[in-house]
């Protein structure tokens, strides 16, 4: 087990930020911590890192108890903070070199690692730039480079893509997958379910400091009753027909709004076929038709009764 967290409780006054949180993160996985704003993701990370003190619970990393001076553990951990944490007075290269130097003593080795990190986040042409002169996306990339230059075995990224344009975001996500392919275990927190769906091999969904669901994407989606969601462009349909549609087996809900028919079905296999046959047999004219599998948002919605993203 790379990270083992048991019954972690963290209070801020009356607010319980972490409520008996337990996590197990295995070697080699990309572990996603998904939750809406304020659900306690950053608090969990900071407690795991022994940066925050907590009221109760145990944290082990690489099988050993994590403490502020567990230097042998810290040496193998890389962190990318939610807030960009770089020095405005140091250039891109110097920032990476400074943080890398806190982990790696050997000069030649350090130089090699820093060069690799610069290349990895593709900041080569900006190496002499000061952070103030970098765009948001480039700054995020620098923030990442500072956390990973020393080639840690465990990399924790806390919302590394906040306020980043889609192109930079994809670059970052690809990079994370590459780091994982090179052997690093990744912990990735986000409130963007698309990101988590895209890269994470295992996911924990948090809300109000508690874990509400965990598993692989497929497992999570299997947990809920919702199957696929079918959307049909239908211009005229009678109330009676809607009613009949609702009665069909496998159909959970039917809504008709703005000439769009949204049909939610359960996990059966032939739902799309059933709907198509119904439309044809009742001679209901329709335009485009498409079907989506449930997202993590639907999972969150079904469990908590609210949207993941507000």
């Amino acid at each position, binding site marked *: 087990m790379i990270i083992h967290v048991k019954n972690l409780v963290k209070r*801020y006054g009356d607010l319980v930020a972490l409520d008996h949180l337990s996590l197990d993160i295995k070697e080699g996985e990309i572990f996603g911590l998904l939750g809406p704003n304020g659900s306690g993701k950053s608090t969990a990370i*900071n407690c795991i*890192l*022994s*940066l*925050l*003190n907590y009221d109760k619970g145990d944290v082990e990393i690489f099988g050993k108890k994590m403490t*502020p*001076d567990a*230097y*042998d553990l*810290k*040496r193998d*951990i890389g*962190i990318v*903070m939610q*807030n*960009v*944490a*770089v*020095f405005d*007075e*140091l250039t891109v290269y*110097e920032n990476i*070199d*400074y*943080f890398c*130097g*806190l*982990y790696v*003593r050997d000069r030649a080795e350090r130089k090699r690692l820093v060069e690799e990190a610069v290349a990895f986040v593709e900041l080569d042409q900006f190496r002499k730039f000061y952070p103030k002169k970098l765009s948001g996306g480039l700054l995020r990339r620098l923030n990442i480079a*500072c*956390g990973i230059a020393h080639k840690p075995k465990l990399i924790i990224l806390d919302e590394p893509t906040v306020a980043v344009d889609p192109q930079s975001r994809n670059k970052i996500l690809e990079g994370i997958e590459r780091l994982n392919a090179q052997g690093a275990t990744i912990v990735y927190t986000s409130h963007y379910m698309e990101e988590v769906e895209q890269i994470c091999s295992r996911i924990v969904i948090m809300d109000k400091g508690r874990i509400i669901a965990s598993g692989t994407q497929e497992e999570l989606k299997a947990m809920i009753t919702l199957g696929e969601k079918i959307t049909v462009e239908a211009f005229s349909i009678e109330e009676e027909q809607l009613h009949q549609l609702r009665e069909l087996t496998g159909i959970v809900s039917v809504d008709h709004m703005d000439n769009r028919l949204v049909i939610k079905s359960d996990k059966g296999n032939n739902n799309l076929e059933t709907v198509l046959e119904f439309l044809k047999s009742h001679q209901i004219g329709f335009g485009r038709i498409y079907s989506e599998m449930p997202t993590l948002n639907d999972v969150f919605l079904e469990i908590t009764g609210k949207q993941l993203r507000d």
Partner: protein
Amino acid sequence: MFAHIFLYRFKCLIRDRQLVFWTLVFPILLGTFFYMAFFNLNNDETFHPIDAAVVNNHAYQHDAQFKFVIEHISKGKKRLFNLKVASTQKEADSWLKTNKVKGYFTNGETLRLTVQESGLEQSIMKRFADQYRTDSSAIKSIAKENPKALQNGLLSDLGKQQSYVKEISGGSAKPNNVLNYFYSLIAMACLYGSFWGMKEVTDIQADVSARAARVNIAPVHKLKAFIAGSMAALLILFSEILVLLAYLHFGLSIDFGPRTGYVVLTALLGSMLGVSFGAFISALVKKGEGLKVAILLVISMVGSFLSGMMFLNMKYIIAQYVPLLSWVNPVNLLTDAFYALYYYDSLHRYTLNMTMMVFFILLFCGGTYLIVRRRKYASL
């Protein structure tokens, strides 16, 4: 590791232009401003020799000494007087009335000066007359025994226009007192150095900045990193204070007395006081950069004010009515240390000031240590 952190902290600090401005450029500008205000630099530069006369009476003709001195200082480009010789007292009087001269000297039993109004020029003439009267017996005996010495510089002191202009235009303050303004300026610069200490704490306390959180997560002993950074801060501040001292001394001819070693030691202790003070305040006041800056600024400025930087008598008022305040005001301790070093031969008062400063430094360092050594935070 220590060297790595020290080096990068040094870079971080020295590249903070705002801080360099407030801790180095600003005191230098303020010092220059003081200099111009107190020493009338403008007047000094455009100094016109004063129109003066001397009555050519019997005493003057037979006092070779005085004749030599006054002719000597009325010669050359940097002369003090445009000297005219009046054949009679009456003639000199008429010149004075028609404003052809600002005043005239009459030699006799002693040297007399006659002026009509008072002003800078008249004051300078008076200073000259006073100075001559005091020095004349000495000059006379030297002239008897070693006339060469007189020409080789003894006189140059008496005739230097600059020294007169400076002393007189200092206004009501005695020249020695003017120095106090500059000493408290140095003290202020040291206390402004508290911003360096503040920056160090900001960059090591994870509950203050995200950068610091990242350092806290690295496999580095926090105190070690903090000490490395504080050393860099101290080195920078100490160098700045030395530059300021050099500028005041060599550029503006501010006198610090002959004990250079002690002056440098005072500067070092002052720098330590500044850095540790800033570190302590910003460790104590967790949140709010603005609040910290405000506290540091207010304490530095009020401290400077109370030690007489804006208004000299303040220092004496405090010393007389609230003596305790002058012993707990770090700016005053520093100012007074420089002052005592210049003014007294005995090191007693100086030592007392320095001891108090050491006490404060220990207090601030100890307090900072107790706060900064904590490695887990209640909230970030």
